Every structure is written in C-alpha cells, then in structure tokens.
C-alpha cells in the first residue's frame, strides 16, 4: 500500500483521538472509535495483501465485526438505555487538553524517542504518529471522568498499540491476534454489564462519584 495512504490513515487515527478528547457527546465518541477501528482493519487488510496469509484475513474479518460493528452497537445501546448522551466531565479544560496533546505529540516526535520510532527506519513517521496516539489514548483514560469514555480510551489504546507493533515489525502470529480480538470481545461484553451495574448502583457513570468503593 502506498506510504502516503498509510500516512493518511494514521492521520485519520490521530484526528479521531483528538476528536475523542474534544467531543462532548458519547455517541460521537463511539463513532470516532468505530472510524479508528476501521482504519486499523484497513491496515490489517493491507498486511493480508502483502503476506497472503489467510489467517490474517480472518483477523481482518473479526476486527471488522467486533471492533467496527459490534462494539459501537453495544455502546450505542448503553447510551440509549441509560440516556448517557453527554460526556462533558474532564479533569482539564479544553485549551489545556490541546496543550497537553501538543506536548505529548512533541515528546513522541522528539529525538529522545528515536530508538523506539526508528526500529524500522522506513516507518519512522508512522511509528512516531502511533506513539503519539498511544500517549494520547492514555491521556484520554486519565482525563475523562465517565466510565464509558474511559472504556473507549482503553479500546483506543489497544488500537494504537496494534498500529505501532504492525509497523515496528513486532507483529505476532495471526493466532495470537485472533486471541486478542476474542479477548476484547469478551471484555466489551463484561465492561458493558459492569457499566449497567454501576449505573444501577450509583446512578451515574462518573467515577469520581463512586466514593462507596473506597475504603
């Protein structure tokens, strides 16, 4: 696949992350995650085209079904069920979020991280973006108070790590990837059940309000 197209895809991924940080609506966050997952699926499909490994095609299929379709549907149902349309609770204000995102991107692109981003020199630009997306996903988990946003942050982190390992040459066997996706599938179901239970118990998904869990 053309490197420019790959860069474009990674650019889309980066932007979805920025969008996830800025959006105030849970539904839009779910859509952004879906787009991000679609990007990863395309990248995996590219791997299949290059290797002709049919197991990878299975991975692509599972990724498409679970990450792009099922997971967003689950979240949309949750949003409807508990009327969680808005997700505005963050620890930092929007300008500060943008500043931190810039700093994290700067760190990922800095010379200090060259040993990590130049594992495969041809993919340095892609790896730098992937690293910055990893940092931003972590920051998303930290910054958001809503449990749903945090779950999307974790799933987004998984996507960004996957993007990094594909272009760093650290890709594992398709069997392992299928296992990871299956694991995620189970994880999403469990997380959804937990979210429902948490909402029933606390009447909110704002984690800072769940004081009763503290000792």
């Amino acid at each position, binding site marked *: 696949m053309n490197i420019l197209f790959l860069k474009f895809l990674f650019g889309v991924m980066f932007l979805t992350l920025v969008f996830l940080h800025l959006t105030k609506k849970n539904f839009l966050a779910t859509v952004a995650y879906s787009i991000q997952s679609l990007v990863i699926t395309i990248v995996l499909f590219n791997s299949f085209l290059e290797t002709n490994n049919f197991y990878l095609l299975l991975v692509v299929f599972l990724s498409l079904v679970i990450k792009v379709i099922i997971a967003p549907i689950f979240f949309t149902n949750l949003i409807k069920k508990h009327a969680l349309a808005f997700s505005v609770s963050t*620890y930092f204000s929007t300008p500060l979020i943008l500043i931190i995102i810039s700093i994290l991107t700067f*760190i990922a692109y800095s010379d*200090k*991280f*060259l*040993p*990590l981003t130049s594992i495969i020199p041809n993919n340095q630009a892609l790896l730098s973006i992937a690293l910055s997306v990893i*940092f931003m996903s*972590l*920051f998303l*988990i*930290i*910054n*958001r*108070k809503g449990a749903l946003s*945090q779950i999307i942050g974790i799933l987004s982190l998984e996507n960004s790590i996957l993007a990094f390992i594909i272009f760093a040459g650290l890709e594992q066997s398709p069997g392992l990837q299928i296992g990871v996706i299956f694991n995620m599938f189970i994880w999403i179901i469990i997380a959804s059940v937990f979210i429902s239970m948490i909402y029933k118990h606390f009447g909110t998904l704002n*984690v*800072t309000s769940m*004081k009763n*869990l*503290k*000792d």
Partner: protein
Amino acid sequence: MLEIITPSVSFFVLLSIFFIGAISSLIYQKNDSIANFLSSFFSIIGSLCGLFFSVSMIIYGKNLSFIINYPYSSFFKISFHIDLLSAFFIFIISLISLFCSIYGVGYLKHFYKKYSIGVFGFFYNLLIGSLLLVVTASNGIFFLIAWEIMSISSYFLVVYDRYDTDNIKAGFLYLIMTYVGTVFIILSFLFIYKYIGSFEFIDIKSGISLIPLSIKNNIFIFTIIGFGTKAGIIPFHIWLPAAHPAAPSHVSALMSGVMIKTGVYMMIRLFVDILQPIPVWWGILILIIGSISSLLGVLYALTEHDIKRLLAFHSIENIGIILLGLGSALIFYSLNMPELALLGLMASLFHTLNHAIFKSLLFLSAGSVINEMHTRNIEEYGGIIKYMPQTAMFFLIGSMAISALPPFNGFFSEWLTYQALFQGVAQLNLSFQGIFIIAASSLAFTGGLALTCFVKAFGIIFLARPRSTKVSSIKESPLSMRIGMGFLALMSILFGLFSGYTSRLLEKIGKDLSIFKDTNYFTSASFYQGIDIKNSFASVSAPIIFVVLIIIIFAVIFIFTFVINKNQKIKIENTWGCGLNLNKRAEITATGFARSIILVFKGILKPSIQNEVEYHDADSRYLPKSRVITIHVKNIYNYYFYQPLRNIINIISLKTKNIQSGNINAYISYIFISLIIALLSVL
C-alpha cells in the same frame, strides 16, 4: 584414600541424609514417636557424616569446588566451594547438631499430642541442611536461596509452640528483621554484580579491583547490616532475645550456637577473603561494634530474669567478642601486618567454635530445667541442684566456660583475643592504640560481668532453697537429654585441654585463605607447651593449668579433710537465721543480685526503681509488712533507635497514603508518568 572420603558425592550424600530426614518425618507426622525417631535418627547420622567429612577436609587440607549448571539462567549456578574455612563451619554445625539431635530425642516427648513432631522434624532437618548450604555456597543467588531456606525453616521452628502468643510475636519480629537483613544482603550482591558481572564468589574475588572504593564501602555497610542482623550485633539484635527463648530449647541452642555464626562466616568470607584489599576503617568499625555488642550484651543479660533471654543476650556479647578478633585481624592486615592478622582471625574462629559449644550446652541445660519447671523466670527456681544434679553440673561447666575460667575452652579463645588486642596496643602507633585499649578494656569488663552474671544465674537457679513449690516435684532429665548435654560439657573441657592443638589447626584454616598463604605463624602451639605468642610475648598451657588445678583441688580437699577437720566431728544442724524461719524471703533474688551493678551502669541502662511497701497499719506507716522492689531497665536501643525510626516510617507512610486517592484516573496517571520517565531514562 583422600579421593574416597572427600569427593563432591559425599557432600551430596550428606545433604541428602537431612533431606530424607525432613521428608520421612513429615510422611510419618501422624505418629509422633516414629516421626521423632526418623527426624532424630537422620539428623544424628547426617551430623556424624558432617563431622567425618569436615574433619577429613581439615586434616588433609583439601579444597573442593564443583558446579551444577542451571541451563535456564546465565547468572545462577548451583556452585559449591568448600575450603578449610567452610569445612571448619561444617564441623561446628555438625558438632552442635549432633548433640542437639540426641538431646531432642527426649526433649520432644513433651510436645507429643500437642504439636506435630513430623512438621518439627521437617523444619529441623531442613534448617541443618540449609546451614550446610550457606557455608558452602559459592554463588550469590544460590547463597541467597540457601539463606532464605535457613531463615524460613528457623522461623517455623521459632513459632513451633504456637499456642503462646508471645512466640508468634517473637517469630514475626524475627521474620521482619531477617528480611530487613536480607534486603541489605541482596543490595550488596547487586552492587557487586553491577561491576563484576557475575555472582560467582571466585569471579568476584578475581575481579574485585573493578569495584571502585566508594562502592566497596557501600557494600561493606550493607553487608555489616545484613549479616550483622543475623549475627545479632547491636543495634540489629532485637530479634535475638525474643526469638531464641521462643524456640524449643535444642533449636535455641542450634540458633544461638550455629545459625547466628553464619553471619560471622559471611563477614569473614567477604572481608578477609573476597573483598580484599580493604580500607583500615572497616576493621576499626568492626572492632567498635564488637566492643559495644560485647559490653551491652552482657549488661542486658545481667538485668534479665528470663533464663533463655539471659542466654540470648550472652550470645550478643559473644558475637561481640568474636568481632573483636575479626576487627583486629582486618586492621592488622590493612596495616600490612599479616602475622598479627592471622592471630586475630584465629582468635575469632576459636571463639566461634567455643561459643557454639558452651552456649549450646547452656541452652540445653536451661531447656532441661524449663522442661521440668514450665517457666523461664529464674526467680521461681532455686535449690534445683538437689533434684537435677547432673543438669546442674553441666550448667556449671557451661557457665565456667562462658565466663572464661580455665581450664575450659572459653578461657583460651578469650586469651587469644586479648593477645591480638594487646599486640595492637604494643605494635601500632598512638592513633590505633587508643582503639585497641578501648577494645581490650571492653573485653575485660565483659569477662568480669559475664562471670558475675553466671554466678547470679547458677546461684539463683540451682543453689539455696526453692522459691516455688514446683521445685520439689521436678526430676532429672531423661537419658538422651543428659547424653546431649554431657558430651557438650566434655567438649568444653577437651577443647580447653587441647587448645594448643586446636589453635594449630585454626592457624592452618587461616593460612588456607589466599591472603595468608605466605604468612608466617605468630604463635607456636603444641599439646604440652600450649599456645606461645611470638617473641615470648605471652604463653598459656592448658595441660599445666589443668594439672595445677587438679593439684590445688586435691590439696584443698586433703587439707580440709586431714588437717583442719582432723579432730572435728561432723554435726548436721539447721542453718541459724537470726532466730527467724528460713524461707524464700530470706534469699537474695536475681534482681537484688544485679541491683548494685545495674546502678553502677545506670548511665547506660537507665533503670527505674519502683518500691512497693505494704504496712501492717496503713495509717501509721511504721511497721512494714512486705517490701517489693522492681527494677525496670530502659531499652535504650529501642528508645533511641527503633522508636524514632518507627516514627519516621509512620510519617512517611501517612504522606505516602495520600497517593492512594482511590481515583482510577490518578492511578493511571501514575502509570503514565512512570512510563514516560522510564522511557526517557532508558532511551
């Protein structure tokens, strides 16, 4: 012949005997008698094999090294190196284990149906096996594994009598202190690995020049704390007076006589053998620690009423004396006086052996009394000599040996320690003389106070009239217990009588270490001549002392029987007590005995005296009915060291608790920040 008796196979056979003993007693744990038999049988056989193995190694002067490669790790190897120093410690371990195991056959019977004897046998054999591993391991990681097995097995033996909550507390304290010590030992090995790139002792020794002096100094401090905690040096000794009394008596003997010596072994191995050359201040610090430990150890022993705690404090004192020899050896070697260093090391090794013997004897004798009296408080004893005469004799021999009275073994090792210290005063310049004078004075004080303490202990326990009704119902210990004690008492005499020959062997052990290979002897020794210090500086002959003492004893008996009492009839009457009935109130108590000395050292011991007076008429307060004086001694190391340390840790813990906000976002941010810092520092 040599190849037959000292191959590596025989050492594995030796270890496997203890392993079989451990497993078999565990298998038969439902039957106490069989478990006791199996545990004791294998530990006795193993100890005998250990004695044979170590004696043959020392006599033939052979070193043994072998490695079992562990394929999954480059730095972990099961490697052994048994030189004469290791063989000497195997000898001590085997000797004490042998007599403790014989003693244990009878002693364990009072635990039947109460606790599992099989479990005891498992940990007991495991402890002896691990002790052997500790003194033979030649790889840092392997050594730490052996060290941990030793610590854990001894912990389970300390808390064996688990229905007593004090024992559980003592075990907990022991476990904490052990792990504090282990942390420092691990740190020191990691420092060494950083510069040498290997945990093998032989590699460390050959590459020691690669370690910068500042790092070596850190390693020294860490190892002093780590191994000093196990050895029981002040102020890291707090576990010792708590844990030793808690354990069954023959385990106390094994712990006090042998286990704490593993700390001394590693100090000798590291400071004399592996880390050389070393700066002179290392030796000075060890000498100072030795002086403080010996003096404070005996002072605290004097204040004790609990017989086993009293003995435990004497272990601290004797470790101090051992360190006096070691410290002087290190100072002499750093000042390029290897002959004198060998003398110091000899003194240290000799006292290590002697202390193992007489302290085990004392613990076993004390255990026999406790077994009958069911209390450790000596104020409740008195007059026991009438009911347990043999035990009293064994305790007396142990007391005389620990008080360094000739012709028992303790005298000769303390004499050698004095000689090493006196040589420091005689041959070094003014700046070092002061330190050696202080150390020698400390040893002199210690010797005098130890004698006082054992006069008190023996007098209060065995002499005079019983202080409780329990005493009249006690009886002499079973045969196996008396055999165990009797042989140790015999060893106390033999190692005194043959001190010349023993010191010759100790010189040989010292000269086996690479730094003393070309060193001339500073002493000459033989059976008749005893030990002679070079240039006729001093000499002592055990046989001559022995003969003179025998002559004096017979002469005194002769004079009293045939001269003074020749024409006098023996008339047995009750002792006149100024018209009062003689009862326990007329006797001096342990507190009363020690009171004057405690008051002399009140600057250190900080005693508080509580007087409780009961009057016949509370209003007039003229005629006292009874008067109780209680002396409390302030635990100064607790007050000035552990208490402030605990306060600091509490403050830090409270501050650290704030990090635990209960907020998942905060936790993830910690992870994220740590990740960024880790990446920035590594990349």
